[in-house]
């Protein structure tokens, strides 16, 4: 038997929650703390729904879907309560969409739009602006934080760095790096998982600030060039300037599930570096000149053969890179051993 959401029938998979069934079928229920990777949290309470035969409002993120369940996500009672909850969040922070980097890519904005909240209506004292720019790549604005806990979950359970946690309690709750250190002085390794998970503009890439609206940037999916793991990532590119503005992990990639390391996420300067070598070079009379692969490959082959002939196989050593794949590294050592005939082969990860 299927599950009924707003009168429509949906098949359910074992163990799925009501929110998961709804999202899978493109039914939007506002949710701010749930993320497929960090799982249910039941914290923001925005995902409340009504279920026939059950008392009161229930959070759909931790409500296991059952056969025959009749769920309503858009009744007046549900929407009124959702509106108050999202309004409270909007009222308690410094949520200024005009200047926010996450404008257009913000889950709180989506929820407010869905519920028709034009502006915050509660009189809470405006949050004090408290920013932390002590770290190299990540900018933290606590006045935008909605205490959803995704960053804490991600840091603790997904990447297991255990740097982020909550400090204080009640209305004073705030995220903390180690024991309330500035992020730059904490044990944070700048993997950026918290940036990836933050639903609002509280934790963002510092280098993207002021460099383009999210909808202006072209998203290009590619594979990380750094190591053999092959993390899938998305480059956010300013085509006009031909610059990479930011990099995010691709959540549905089985290799990395959206996670990246500091190099993959933030080490993209080299792409547009002036010093970058873009063609093979041949040294002649003590000076390099540009060449192309068609010229270089036979040239190297010729030289290797000559050295092997004159000085023997062991006069040659091969050094490869962690940036290429395991298969390429395997092929390289095979080439060194069987073609060149030497065991002098190594890899930069041993340096």
């Amino acid at each position, binding site marked *: 038997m299927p599950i009924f959401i707003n009168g429509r029938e949906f098949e359910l998979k074992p163990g799925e929650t009501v929110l998961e069934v709804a999202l899978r079928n493109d039914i939007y229920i506002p949710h701010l703390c749930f993320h497929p990777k960090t799982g249910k949290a039941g914290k923001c309470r925005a995902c409340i729904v009504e279920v026939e035969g059950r008392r009161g409002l229930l*959070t759909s993120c931790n409500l296991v879907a059952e056969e025959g369940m009749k769920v309503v996500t858009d009744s007046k009672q549900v929407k009124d309560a959702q509106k*108050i909850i999202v309004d409270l969040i909007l009222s308690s922070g410094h949520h200024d969409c005009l200047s926010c980097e996450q404008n257009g890519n913000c889950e709180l904005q989506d929820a407010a739009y869905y519920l028709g909240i034009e502006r915050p209506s509660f009189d*809470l004292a405006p949050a004090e602006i408290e920013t932390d720019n002590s770290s190299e790549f990540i900018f933290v604005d606590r006045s935008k934080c909605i*205490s959803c806990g995704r960053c804490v979950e991600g840091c603790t359970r997904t990447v297991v760095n255990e740097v982020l946690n909550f400090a*204080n*309690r009640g209305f004073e709750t705030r995220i903390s790096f180690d024991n309330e250190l500035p992020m730059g002085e904490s044990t944070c390794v700048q993997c950026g998982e918290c940036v990836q998970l933050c639903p609002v503009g509280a934790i963002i890439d510092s280098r993207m600030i002021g460099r383009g609206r999210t909808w202006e940037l072209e998203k290009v999916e590619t594979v990380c060039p750094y190591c053999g793991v092959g993390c899938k990532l998305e480059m956010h590119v300013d085509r006009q300037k031909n610059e990479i503005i930011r990099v995010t992990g691709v959540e549905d990639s089985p290799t990395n599930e959206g996670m990246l390391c500091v190099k993959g996420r933030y080490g993209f300067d080299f792409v547009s570096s002036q010093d970058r070598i873009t063609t093979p070079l041949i040294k002649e009379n003590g000076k390099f000149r540009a060449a192309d692969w068609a010229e270089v490959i036979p040239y190297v082959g010729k030289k290797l053969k000559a050295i092997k002939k004159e000085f023997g196989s062991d006069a040659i050593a091969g050094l490869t890179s962690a940036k290429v794949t395991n298969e390429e590294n395997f092929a390289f050592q095979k080439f060194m051993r069987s073609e060149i005939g030497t065991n002098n082969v190594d890899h930069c990860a041993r340096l």
Partner: protein
Amino acid sequence: MSLKRTDVLLCCGSGCVSAGSLKIKSKLIEVIEQHGLSSEINIIETGCMGPCDYGPVMLVYPEGIFYKKVQVKDVEELVEEHFLKGRPVKRLMLKSEDTIFQTKKDIPFYKNQVKVALENCGYIDPEKIDEYIAMGGYEALGRAVTEMNPEEVIDIIKKSGLRGRGGGGFPTGLKWENVKNSESDQKYVICNGDEGDPGAFMDRSLLEGDPHKILEGMMIAAYATGANYGFFYIRAEYPLAIKRIKNALSQAKEYGLLGNDILGSGFSFDAEVRTGAGAFVCGEETALIASIKGERGQPVSKPPYPSESGVYQKPTLVNNVETLGNIATIINKGADWFASMGTATSKGTKVFALTGDVKNTGLVEVPMGITLHDLIFEVGGGMVAGKKFKAVQLGGPSGGCLTADHLDTAIDYESLREKGAMMGSGGVIVMADNNCMVNIAKFFLEFSLDESCGKCTPCRVGLKEMYTILENITAGKGRSGDIEKLENLGKTISGTSLCGLGQAAPNPVLSTIRYFRQEYESHIEAKSCPTCVCLDLMHFDIDKDKCIGCSLCAQKCPVNCISGSREEKYTIHQADCIKCGNCQEVCPVNAVDKISGAAEKEEKLNSVAELYQ
């Protein structure tokens, strides 16, 4: 434990200790020794006897004489007159207008009480296991583990109708059965001693006054559910309770009542104390479990319930102190006896901490179903002199305020909830007519706001918003529509919060709006606090007809805002007045009145000198 001709029971509950009972004890020992009576008189330190307002209190057996407010200077007279010459000291006895209550059983405070959980509290020395055993202690455990199987034990508890005394009111037997039915190699029992309601001290008194009874209850619960390890979760603010439970554990171990193969039954059990850091939310069972595991004390969504996955993901039974305090007696006296007390849905007795403007503040245990009137006016002895009953707050910051119209309400879980209050853990705060209900609601809400863990939005942000509105109302900045806003927010917070703290936190506001709406309206519309509690909505004024021009008020005014002369009488310059109330206190002829509504402020004076020009 030696038998002597006189037993002096000295209450050493926290209230009496802070009133000086330990000093009295050392003086007693000294004076008794001086008179050579050491071999004839036993001095026994007991747990709380109940009437805290009269502390330090003392009971002398065999006569059963009850002494109140005993001071160190009274000890010599007591020993000489009573213990030596056999003439009880009348001036230390409890009196009403026309009677002296000689013995404990004469005292009206005790007359309507039925003690089950508190049966030994105030009678035995809580630090001596022998005294507990002499009162029939550990008999129930012995019977349970040797004569009954776990199903039979659960059956008795189910039949007794006992419900959780921590506030939730979940049927205890059913909870036990759920834990028993959860398959696991390891199960735990937790005694929830994280009592945190302002003004509540039921669990504290039980842990301090009869620790073995709680331990015995926990062991029976463990036997019935298949657990073999227990945690006493007690807040660090209760050092005496922690000490006494630790002492009880080591004594029970020494007697072979704790450990492996208890009483040769094959049942093994051990327990330890875990100290809470004082967060109110840790009284919520999932937050408590997180705290025991060393995590941040905040609740998690249920299901799974602790009965399936609790401490270290193992099935865990969490019972309140008072709930466990009833178990041994139910096993001994039977389910029918227990179920004969109370109402259709709420059986047995309930311990309450009576506080506020009531004569007999203290710890009481009454049968369920007693009316609020009997609790406050019979057991509690009525309002303190000269005050009129206005409201009673039941269930602490999670509860609600009821009015004089509800005094006939029978105290049981359902009736209270229906009226907008709740049983809670048993705090009863009686308020006289000089209390401002808006201010009271603000006080309780401030408590919940402080204690919110911050995990879920409605509680974290919503309570702050409600509090901000109340602050504005009491400061004269209320706007029309505020009441509706409070109601709307309150209902949403109740309906959407993650745990009981948030779900119940708006109750004091919602119930005071329900029963005292006109007070809110008066604050908002007329900018006037009818009880003159909210300083921004009242002012002091000097009645010129009464004023005798003595100038005392002007002399005592810390901001020099009163001027005048013997002839012209005195006037308060409202713009500078800080409403400290000194003038009213010192006026010999009661010419200074509190007047509701803010004063019309005249122009602020630039200097004190202008006053005298």
